[in-house]
Structures are given as C-alpha cells and as structure tokens.
C-alpha cells in the first residue's frame, strides 16, 4: 500500500505554468548564450589586434633600419621585424599570381611589431620617437578600431545581461503567482495538515518539492530547445561561410554547456524558493 502524494497530482494550471516557465527558460538561455557570444567575440577580436602595431615608413631603406632599431629600443616591444619581399608577395599573391612581385615595383616599407600585453600608448610613443629622428612614419596600433569593437560588444553584452536578469525576475514572479494560485486551490489541504499538527516547514516542503520538480523539468525542456535553436543558428552560419557578425563565436563551448546546464537548476531553485516564501507567508495567516 504505497501512499499517494499529500498534494493532488497536477491540474491544468500546472500545465500552463510548465509552458510559461519553459518559454522563459528558453528565452533566458538564449539571451545568456548571446551575451556569452558577444563577450567572447569582443575578447577574441580585441585580443587579436591589441599589441599588434603596424608601422609604415616613408623613405630610404636606411630610414627603415633606423626605425626598426628605435622600435626594438622600447622595452615594451616584444618583437619587431621588417616585412620582407616574400611577405609582400604572399600578401599580394591573389592579385599578382605566383610569379611574385615584378622587379622595380616599389614595395611599402612596413614594420610589424608586437607590444607586451600591458604596454600603454605605444602608438604615440613610437610616433614621437620617429619624429625626433626625422623619420616620416604612420603608426597604427588598432586602438581606435578595437575600442569601437569593445564599445559595440559591451552594449550588446549589457543588453543581453539585462534581458537575462529581466527574464529571471519574470520567471520568479510568475512562479510565485502560480504557487499562490496552487495554494488557494489547495487551501483546505493546507488547513487540514496544519490542524493535524504539521509544521510550516513540512507543508512548505510539499510545495517546494512539487515546484522544484516543475522548475527542473520545464528548465530542462527550455534549455534543450535553446540548444536546438543555437545549433540551428550555428548551422545556418556555417552554410553561409561564417561571415556573419557574432555568429562565428557561437561555437558551443564549455561556457555554453554550463549556461544550458545551469538553466534548469536555476529555474528549479527559484521555483522552490518562490514556493517556500509564498507558502510560509500564507501559513502565517493561520494561527
């Protein structure tokens, strides 16, 4: 004789709540995945270019030599080298073919340098050093560009984080609301258990377990749907050569796995917490 649950099995209200929590978890997981994608896109792009300095020298090969010497003289510079003819040939091969650069074609004199990660204002420092030595040079440290990228991805990240926070808050509010409704519908059960000497924690526990289970299940379904959606976007991006902004970063990583794995747990725990608070508060109305 195995005893049935003290709370009756779920009714139509619970099905509606399941759907809502599921949809919120789907949206929340997608928003978190987008935030993650924006974050690593910003990191990857800025990491790629920070520290990379390109210097173009106007003048004779002696000027190039001198500029190289000056550049290497900075302790913040990790490495610096002049681009050779072969580098230029490699860069220009799509246009000039395998025959290489024709003799006599003036090649730009370019130094590719790399600064230490913590170096600051290298562009300005190099520029003034060249000026003092009367070398005409254009220094590009990609700062403007990477700042632009950072700003753009920062705002994308902020929007995504706000969306995640809003969705989480909505989910908790909806669950609290639903628990309250469930409690009203089961008020007689709560009252009878109370009069039989049940402690508040015992009655709250019944609802906590019910809503923990609901949150976990709905969260899992939502997360799986979000995974499918992300995989679909990734697939579409691969089909179109991956040349779409942000999407190349949507490769499913460990962090994405963590986000998807945490979604049901967060949903379950917030459902449980909402249930606990609502039940304890309604029980306070009983003697």
């Amino acid at each position, binding site marked *: *004789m195995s005893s049935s649950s003290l709370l009756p099995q779920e009714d139509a209200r619970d099905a509606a709540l399941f759907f809502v929590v599921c949809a919120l978890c789907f949206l929340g997981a997608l928003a978190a995945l987008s935030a993650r994608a924006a974050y690593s896109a910003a990191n990857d792009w800025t990491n790629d270019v920070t520290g990379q300095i390109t210097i173009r020298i106007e003048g004779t090969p002696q000027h190039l030599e001198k500029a190289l010497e000056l550049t290497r003289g900075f302790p913040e510079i990790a490495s610096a080298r002049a681009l050779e003819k072969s580098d230029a040939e490699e860069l220009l091969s799509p246009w000039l073919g395998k025959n290489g650069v024709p003799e006599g074609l003036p090649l730009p004199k370019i130094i590719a340098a790399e600064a230490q990660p913590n170096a600051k204002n290298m562009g300005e420092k190099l520029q003034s050093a060249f000026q003092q030595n009367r070398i005409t040079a254009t220094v590009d440290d990609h700062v403007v560009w990477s700042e632009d990228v950072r700003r753009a991805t920062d705002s994308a990240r902020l929007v995504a984080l706000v969306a995640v926070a809003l969705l989480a808050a909505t989910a908790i509010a909806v669950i609290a609301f639903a628990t309250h409704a469930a409690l009203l519908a089961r008020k007689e059960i709560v009252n*009878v*258990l109370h*009069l*039989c000497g049940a402690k*508040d924690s015992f009655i709250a526990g019944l609802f906590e377990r019910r809503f923990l289970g609901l949150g976990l299940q709905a969260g899992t379904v939502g997360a799986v749907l979000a995974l499918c959606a992300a995989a679909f976007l990734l697939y579409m991006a691969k089909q179109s050569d991956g040349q779409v902004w942000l999407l190349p970063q949507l490769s499913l990583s460990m962090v994405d796995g963590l986000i998807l794995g945490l979604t049901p747990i967060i949903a379950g725990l917030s459902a449980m917490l909402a249930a606990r608070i609502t039940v304890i508060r309604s029980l306070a109305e009983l*003697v």
Partner: protein
Amino acid sequence: MNNMSLEEPAVQFDQVSLSYGLDQDVLTQVSLELHARSFTLLTGPSGAGKTTLLKLAYLALLPSSGQISLFGINTNRLNRVGLAKLRRRVGVVFQEFRLLDHLTAYENAALPLRVMGEPERQYKDDVIELLRWVGLGDRLHARPETLSGGEKQRVAIARAIVGKPDLLIADEPTGNVDPEMGDRLLRLFQELNKRLGTTVLIATHDQHMVENAGAEVLRLADGHVMHQVSNSPSFTIS
C-alpha cells in the same frame, strides 16, 4: 502520554473572549477547566458558539482576549513550532469532517502520523486495525466521495484518534448518523476515555446523547458557559 502534564487540567480557559472581526463577542469572558481524563459534553442552541469554543481549544483560533492553556501549557507563550507540536496531542473530529478528497480512507486516517514523519511500515497495521474497529475494514481504499455520511464520519473519527491524542475534540459527531450508530460512536468515545485516559470534549445538539452519556455537560448561551451535570448516567460501558 506525558504523565506530568496529565496531572494538569487538559483544557483551561481563563477569561477568554472572542469576536469575529468587529462583530459582537461570540464568547464573553469564558472561564472553564476540563480535568485530565474527563468526559465533557458541550451543548447549546445553534449559533451559540460551540464550534467557536472548540476551535479555540484545538488551536485553530486565537482568543481576542484571555488565556488558553492545554495540559498546563500556556498557548500564548508558544511559537509556531510549539503550537504545531501541541496540536499533535489533540485529535479533532470536525463538524464537516474535512477529509481530503484525493486520499483514500486509509490515507486520510493515517494523515496525523504521516505529518509527524512516521514511516508507513510502523503505522500501517495499526491504522488498518483501527479502521476495522470503526467498521470500515472493507472500505480502506475508498475515496471520501464514495463513502456515505456515516462512513466519512468514522474515517474522520479514526483520523482524530489514530495518534492516541491526550485530548479528543468532536464537533457534532453524531449529527449525520442514525441513533443506533450514534450510540455506537458514543460508546467508542467512552471506551477511549476509559481505556486510554483520553480527555474528551464533544459538542452536540443530540438531547439523547446529553441524557445518556452520564458526563458533565456544559451549556453555552449568550456567550457564557453554564455547568450542568447529567443526572441519568444510564449508559453502561461494555
């Protein structure tokens, strides 16, 4: 159960008044004492406040003023956990039964034990035995909606006594049964009172019961309680 507290009055009302909201007092400065192992009937006209008095005694209501003690424990001084533990020493048969529709007769009767966290294997046989004793041995798995009024009442009684309470409170327990079943139930309560020393407090309209129980009778009228002793203790206990 606790021998120390059995020496104390099971129920003690001290200047207890109660009004619902802003309405007139239902009970006005009621003082009464039920001795441990006593058997008391509470009677009075409909609307006199019998159910209200019982609710105060089984800790479903707080008095507007005054003090209620159970087994010598002042309920004003208890926190919620303390009140829950005290409720476990009180079994209640509600006027409208209040069985849980989604549970079977057996599960309803076992509810107080389950609430206390006892494992089912420890109480299963006792609960079945108890339901047999009240004549429901063949209705163990029936849900309340399929039970007759009298059967529901007996499930409610089984639930009230399953935890061997120190105090049994019953609100019109014979309201829904024929006189013969009424006598059987009364005998059951008397047996509990005699055998287990359970203090019994029963609210009833049933004049037959008042005359035959051989118990102390409290009469409630106009918010006050008057004592009156039944003078024809013709009921005998087998």
